[in-house]
């Protein structure tokens, strides 16, 4: 028996689950992964673009926060992405795969822009602002609740349904553009006098405040309320939820209303506070990026803020650094962004598991 065991050749290394890792070590691994990814990107930039790799490295940082303008822009994009990430959390925690955040954002944009076009000058500004917010939140909620109702009642596939709703929303925006851009050009000029006032003259402050409030609110909602508890029970096991008397249909519908409403709110910020108009691509793909942010942070709102920062930092930094190298298309920045996320996501494996190498004693016969 013991002879048989000895005959099995021990592999060079094997994988072992870690008992637990102190938080600081886990973060050191994540930070390290980010830096290794940046170094790899720099080497690639040297190979493909022929520039100085060190210059590329420092350009990533200065492109993300080299000047006050860039810091403002970074905070603005970070806040918006964080809001969308928070919006998808309740649905994902419930294992409802809401891939329709882009469409829900656009629904909010449409409602906000409609208010700006039809009600500007008709009602007092304060009323207009409230209506912009309320209608955007309602529109987002309606856009999300349609697939939720179908899921709850007929158990339709929510991934396909929400995804499809994105295309419908984009089609609706194109339709409204032909209606609202009366010159036929499909370009709507910003309706400046109907836009929400800029706090301190800067357009990043309002989204930042909304993001901070939402982060705190979502943390409390998910962790300390009955709703939050019901969501996690439904996500863990629908049968358990039914057994303990949770009305699963009600929870699904209610949670998607929350999720869609928050996406609608982002639409209101985009159309009402930042751009003053609408376009089919105004969501900027945030609905999908947000899913990555939420997963990487394991749905913890505070960590999501960090992850949203990493995403925006990488995107803006890589674009700027590539530009400094004379790149005039989005291919190289996309490659760099992809490499960095590959490393950041892969490093989660090394936080969960460790590689155990063959011990020296047993391999000593060489």
């Amino acid at each position: 028996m013991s002879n048989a065991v000895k005959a099995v050749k021990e592999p060079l290394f094997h994988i072992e689950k870690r008992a637990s890792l102190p938080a600081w070590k886990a973060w050191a691994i994540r930070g390290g992964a980010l830096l290794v990814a940046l170094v790899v990107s720099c080497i690639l930039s040297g190979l493909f673009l022929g520039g100085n790799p060190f210059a590329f490295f420092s350009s990533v940082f200065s492109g993300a926060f080299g000047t006050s303008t860039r810091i403002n822009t970074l905070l603005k994009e970070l806040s918006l992405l964080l809001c969308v990430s928070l919006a998808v959390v309740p649905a994902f925690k419930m294992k409802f795969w809401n891939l329709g955040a882009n469409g829900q954002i656009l629904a909010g944009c449409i409602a906000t822009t409609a208010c700006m076009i039809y009600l500007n000058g008709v009602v007092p500004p304060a009323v207009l602002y409230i209506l912009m917010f309320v209608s955007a939140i309602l529109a987002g909620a309606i856009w999300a609740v349609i697939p939720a109702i179908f899921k709850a009642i007929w158990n339709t596939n929510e991934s396909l349904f929400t995804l499809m709703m994105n295309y419908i929303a984009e089609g609706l925006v194109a339709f409204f553009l032909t209606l609202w851009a009366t010159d036929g050009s499909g370009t709507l000029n910003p309706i400046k006098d109907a836009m929400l006032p800029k706090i301190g003259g800067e357009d990043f402050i309002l989204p930042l405040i909304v993001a901070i409030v939402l982060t705190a609110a979502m943390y409390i909602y998910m962790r300390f309320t009955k709703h939050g508890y019901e969501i996690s029970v439904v996500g863990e096991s629908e049968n358990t939820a039914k057994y303990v008397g949770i009305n699963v249909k009600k929870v699904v519908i209610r949670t998607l209303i929350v999720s869609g409403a928050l996406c609608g709110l982002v639409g209101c910020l985009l159309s009402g506070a930042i751009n003053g108009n609408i376009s089919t691509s105004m969501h900027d793909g945030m609905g999908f990026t947000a899913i990555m942010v939420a997963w990487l942070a394991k749905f913890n709102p505070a960590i999501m803020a960090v992850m949203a920062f990493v995403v925006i930092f990488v995107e803006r930094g890589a674009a700027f650094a590539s530009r400094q190298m004379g790149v005039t298309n989005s291919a190289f920045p996309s490659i760099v962004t992809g490499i960095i996320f590959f490393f950041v996501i892969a490093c989660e494996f090394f936080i969960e598991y460790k590689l155990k190498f063959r011990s020296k004693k047993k391999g000593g016969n060489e």
Partner: protein
Amino acid sequence: MKKIVSLALSAVMATGLVAGLAACNEKTYKIGMICLHGSASTYDANFINAMKEACENKGMSDDLTIVTDIPEETKCYDTAKDLVDQGCELIFADSFGHEAFIAQAAEEFPNVEFCHATGTTAQTAGLDNFHNAFASIYEGRYLAGVAGGMKLLEMYQDNELEDSNFTDATKKTIKIGYVGAWPYAEVKSGYTSWFLGVQSVFEEADLGVNVAMEVQFTNSWYDETAEKSAAQNLISRGAALISQHADSMGAPSACETAGVPNVSYNGSTATACPNTYIVSSRINWVPYFEYIIDCVFNDGGEIDTDWCGGLENGSVVLTDLGTNAAEGTAEKLATVKASLIDGSLKVFDTSKFTKDGVNLTSYTTSYGFEGECIVTENGKTYFAESSRRSAPYFDIDIDGITILTDATQE
């Protein structure tokens, strides 16, 4: 072991921070360019290549920075602001919808010159440092139409056309098609001039045969699928010749597959569509870019509020003819081009087209402004396109052109 790894990681992170701080002392530029998409888009590539060439000609290649993939949103203004921070004294934006955001930046930074292609509001904005530019591309499209018309005439004379290419059994009217982006003046002026170019060939041939055109809009500037299916639809409806005004390869590739001649825009499609490419018209922006660089950096005076390039200064050009162009096309184009330059030929000559069966004598509510657009000069009455403002404003739906409404609205 673990301690060593942690230490190493901390060291790398610290290096990163230092590198980040050191980066604050970065390079500055003098010329900034904002593009809607990148060099993969034919539209933006046309601007990017021209700007690089102009900067090289003026010895300013190191002073140029190009920012791509900037949507027509506040991001455009943010980018302009960032370019000002980087030292730019001249900023150019290439897309119609950038205009409002460029004007916003121009108001905030009066010491920086802002130029914008295809826009319409510089004349009325009241800002000294905000300028529009375009070119009389309708003349280029007219020439491209002549080349397309000659190909079509050749096909007619060689009996290559099928019954479905004619509107009815009398075989007196040949169908052609056009894929357009959005139903406004820039596109309408373009397809009307192209149509008149094709028509002029048949009028001159005097065979009692004419052309009729169907237009399908995609309601997007770049939608490869929509452009492709629009072209396929037009071909299945009998179009014997196709042209387009949208930025993807959708229409040309549909033509190549179906074997229908195609007149392109923005640049030659000869490599991708060797069997069907005839010619392409495009705006050459090098003359404009050299002009604004001279104005700002070589004391060339004030930049025009609204600059319009033309055939005569090389702003409007045709690409090389395809191998399938009809015989004698090059010679014919040279003659027509000369008459356009000397003014003896006007694209929108009112005797050459009708609206609701009548020749127009007056048109006062054009795209973007009010005022008489039809003038008489040296005995010729014509619609004076791009003379009161560089951006096109011819938006008349003339007879012989039908807009398909099943896919879009008018």
